[in-house]
């Protein structure tokens, strides 16, 4: 998905740069009496309408696919409780006691089954970001003290997945990590 996003951006950025270059060059060639677009208000109206329609289509297609609505009608086969803390993730099938936080040494989850992560933090804000085996970010939520974010996900491929912290949380933020095994 990220590669498609990058290509889309580069195409749009390139088109914008071409438009600006074309407009700039048109002014270089313009005679003294030339007054530009004859009816800019009409052109502006169409430009805005097209932009509005494009953004409207984007919004109506993407919003229903937001992570808040992912697998909302299904029941997860496993619930994993995640407590983030400086600078580690504790994960367990059971609820984690904040006064005596303990996680399991390893977590194994089934492939192609719905899993729900209930993510919170015991100290500051953290990120709970899942990376696949090619180190591509596939899903994430935040870990916030006092709140539980529920992230539902189905892992398609068996293998080892890495969890990285994606919210700056202090001097060892860059080494805060965990892993999951999908079977």
């Amino acid at each position, binding site marked *: 998905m990220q590669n498609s996003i990058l290509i889309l951006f580069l195409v749009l950025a390139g088109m914008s740069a071409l438009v600006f270059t074309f407009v700039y060059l048109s002014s270089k060639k313009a005679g003294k009496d030339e007054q530009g677009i004859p009816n800019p208000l009409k052109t502006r109206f169409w430009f805005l309408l097209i932009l509005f329609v494009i953004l409207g289509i984007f919004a109506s297609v993407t919003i229903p696919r937001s992570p808040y609505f992912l697998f909302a009608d299904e029941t997860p086969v496993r619930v994993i409780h995640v407590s983030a803390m400086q600078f580690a993730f504790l994960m367990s099938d059971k609820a984690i006691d904040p006064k005596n936080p303990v996680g399991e040494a390893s977590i194994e989850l089934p492939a192609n089954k719905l899993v729900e992560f209930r993510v919170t933090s015991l100290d500051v804000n953290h990120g709970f970001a899942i990376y696949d085996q090619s180190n591509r970010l596939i899903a994430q939520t935040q870990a916030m003290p006092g709140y539980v974010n529920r992230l539902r996900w189905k892992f398609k491929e068996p293998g080892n997945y890495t969890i990285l*912290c994606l919210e700056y949380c202090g001097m060892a933020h860059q080494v805060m990590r965990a892993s999951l095994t999908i079977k």
Partner: protein
Amino acid sequence: METIKLRKITSLWIITVLFLFIVNIVLGIIMRLNQGEILHEQPATFYAHMTTHGLTQIGIWFVAGMTGINYLMERYLKTSYLANVVAMVLTVTGILMLWTSTYIGNFHAGWTFLYPLPLKIMWAKWATPLFLGSILVMGVGWLTWSVSMMTQILKKYPLTKALAWQHFRKNPTIQTPPFILISMITLIGIITCLLGAVLLLAMYAAEYFSNGAFVNDALLMKNLTYFFGHTIANEMLYLGLAVIYELFPEVGGRPKWKATWYVALAWNCTLVFILTAFFHHLYMDFVQPVGFQIVGQIASYMASLPAAGVTVFSVLVAVYRTSIKWSLTNLLFFIGVAGWVIGGLGAVIDVTITNNFVLHNTLWVPAHFHTYNALGNVLFSLAFFHWFSIQFSEKTDFEKLTKLKLTLLLIGGIGFLLAFYIGGAESMPRRYSNYPAEFPMAAPLAIGAAVFATIYLAAILIFFFQISKRCLNILFSSSSH
């Protein structure tokens, strides 16, 4: 017309901003070299750089926009010199407090200082109140200036006229200059988000001094942080746009832009969208009410409509097949608008919730905001700085090294930014002092970014020497010209 005192303080602002910008670019290069494993700093030092770099950058480009507005506003009404001085003194004091907290106190909670990180002391204990105090001091300075400026506008233009509402009717008898309209809209946004910052700081203070008796709500604090942080970072761009509306046609020898019903409508809508778009920073907090998340995406999308349909379109129309007079000033404005558009495209992609799910807090985020700052807002301010500095100079070689400066800016800027975009698409996290083995491309990309940032820095150094020299002449000149 402006006074000599205003010219001098404007010159001082410009020299200060450019000097701090150079220092700040160097900090950025150091960070990229550290990520590239050329330098080997302690992570805490890296994060102290990151905190300093972020907040200083917001501060200097905000006051750069402020400087332009203040100087040009004298064409329409009298501004308060005292408020300008207060803003200057408090901004410099705030920056010094910030740098003391980060480099002596080792405070490194990031410029977003997300609650409750500043209260989990991993640095000198005094550094947290000093850091929060630095924001308070700068905020008071900017609030003083903003309230003073708004008061002066309202003395001449009643609120409805300042917001150009009479343009919604046919044949309005009074014309509101676009510069006044945009300044007013921006000032309302600035004052609103600064009041949000006051509330945020008050809540920090309440917890800090309560000895554990009072604990804040993390979600509310995060909403307040981004209401302030996102809004102020965007309003500084709008300050630059007001300057474009005033100077771009003038410098190009084109007719002055006038307010029309659609210009008035666009800017009034912008105020609403800009104050509600900040919700997109909390997309990954699934406990935030879903309605707010959807408002975040729609407001962020809608904010691009008046920007593209009115401002960008007007700039293109002013240039397309017209005999516009090109100079360094309006070339910088023109390229800056292109940079703003391209950064905006990166932003629109990121504010789409489904994309944000895989881009949030990756390098895509600094990619897009550096685009509309380094190749957008910075160019707007450089255009004003250049234009201002040549107003009172007798020499005529103002366009010296124009091609070189623009080439270096573009090559350096594009190369530096591409490294961020590629890193974002490769899922590399932002705000990492060093990258783990999972990202073998992170270090080479960071080195490449540092090289291109150095090219960009070379352009800024030329601007700094040329503009500062002329500003120093204005500063130490005793004559009225």
